[in-house]
């Protein structure tokens, strides 16, 4: 499954880049599984996800929860809780 992953704010700084694209393994089917798979790749993802409180996610530009299913070609974004306004 091809995915495009974006990072924002403190999480982007900790990961060290704003986006990446890759083929995710077949056992990555939802948001939580993707986050766990990214973190188990080691640094910088392991540290970035561990240090960022309450990481939230969006799939195709809509905020979703951890169990949201992924699809081929999805744009997945990870970020800290929003602080606009």
């Amino acid at each position, binding site marked *: 499954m091809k995915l495009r992953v*974006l990072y*924002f*704010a*403190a999480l982007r700084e900790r990961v060290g880049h704003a986006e990446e694209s890759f083929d995710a393994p077949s056992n990555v089917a939802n948001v939580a599984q993707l986050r766990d798979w990214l973190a188990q790749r080691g640094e910088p993802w392991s540290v970035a996800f561990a240090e960022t*409180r*309450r990481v939230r996610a*969006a799939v195709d*530009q*809509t*905020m979703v929860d951890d169990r949201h299913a992924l699809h081929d070609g999805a*744009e997945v*974004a990870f*970020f*800290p*809780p*929003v*602080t*606009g*306004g």
Partner: protein
Amino acid sequence: MPVRVQQEDFDAGAEIARLRAENPKIGAVASFIGIVRDLNEGAAVGSITLEHYPGMTDKALTSIAEQAKTRWNLLDVLIIHRIGTLAPTDQIVLVVTTSSHRGDAFAACQFVMDYLKTEAPFWKKEVTAEGTRWVDARDSDFEARERWKCGKVGKA
């Protein structure tokens, strides 16, 4: 239902005048302006920089405005949010709601802000005397949004 994300400042008076121009159905206008403060979490703030998620921001703000229109009898909703670097006293965000009667305009304006604070993909980074830091989300913002759920506060 205009939604704008921009670096430039806005003129609330001119925006309101434009929104309600020649619409005799409007009996009430409620507006909210968010402003950069000079103190946050005990530290003096020199400036803040607002980052956003360009692909998602318009979509999130439009969805919030649409939810408000579904919930109250509104004639229009305007949301303007600034990005980039801002200094204390600068305006950050403008929300304007128009309706026939004040109850809908007041409630919807607050609803839009409470949702914007927790659902719209903006992040603030502050420059203070102690250095640069990302602003933490506040639990009170989540609580403010939660009270609109389960019909705790709704249509009069």
